[in-house]
């Protein structure tokens, strides 16, 4: 099987699909091949990955006790 060759524009256009694990194996392979060869696209990938991780740190904290009790109270009625 021949690996499709991607240019920088094509890789950057799919960088979020790649980071979000939304691409098939063949496309992932083509992108990773390009990333191994292209410092600029690799740097971009690293940056976007770091930014996504930073945003992910906002993920919700613990559930407030009052809500926890309220929902458990609801569930007991079912």
């Amino acid at each position: 099987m021949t690996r499709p060759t991607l240019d920088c524009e094509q890789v950057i256009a799919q960088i979020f699909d790649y980071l979000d694990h939304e691409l098939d194996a063949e496309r992932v392979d083509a992108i990773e091949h390009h990333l191994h060869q292209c410092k600029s696209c690799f740097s971009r990938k690293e940056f976007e990955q770091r930014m996504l991780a930073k945003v992910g740190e906002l993920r919700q904290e613990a559930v407030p006790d009052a809500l926890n009790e309220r929902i458990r109270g609801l569930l007991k009625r079912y």
Partner: protein
Amino acid sequence: MAVSREFFECQVLDLLGCLHGVARRLTCHDADAEDLVAETVERAWRARDTLHSEEAFRSWIFRILNNTFISERRRQAARPQTASLDCEEEDDEDGFSIFEQLHQPFLLWFSTPEQAFVDGLLRADLERALARLPEAHRVIVVLSDLEELSYAEIAEMLGIPIGTVRSRLARARGKLQKILWQQARAYGLKAAQPGGDAGEHAQRPGALQARPNDHGEGS
């Protein structure tokens, strides 16, 4: 399918943190968020026969949460409905990236300006920027980047095609970066210049932190 009470309870309690997290971002109000979660659980229980498979529980209940939020908003006659989650905004944020503002290809240091920018962001910076996103963009960032739902799950939850999820998410992330960039510019960060001026600003620890109200907050 028939959902047992035990299965329903177990799933709801497992997802409670996620449901509350999304509800908080949607409503931007703690008490409203708790009401929204409670109303969602009640509606979900009443509609439990509409769940097609146990594996679909998460996207199913998130969809109920979303629909509950939208119908609640529509009931609030005093509040304009211009920020519907169904809206697809046309804007020019598509493709904006802080990387393009800061990246300097000839720097070979262990920490690049764009990486230093991200590392210097405080939780408060991100919270503020996220809150400034239009509702349709904020919710898709929350579902994808905080709650880690797949594009297919988000499409199911919002009732939109996967292609729309993809394009809206890209726009939302671009807009989020643009807001963060504007916030940073307001505090004195400069764009990349030949000669590395931005590099010095961006790599200085706390490039975004040097302001009075943020002392003591962790990143």
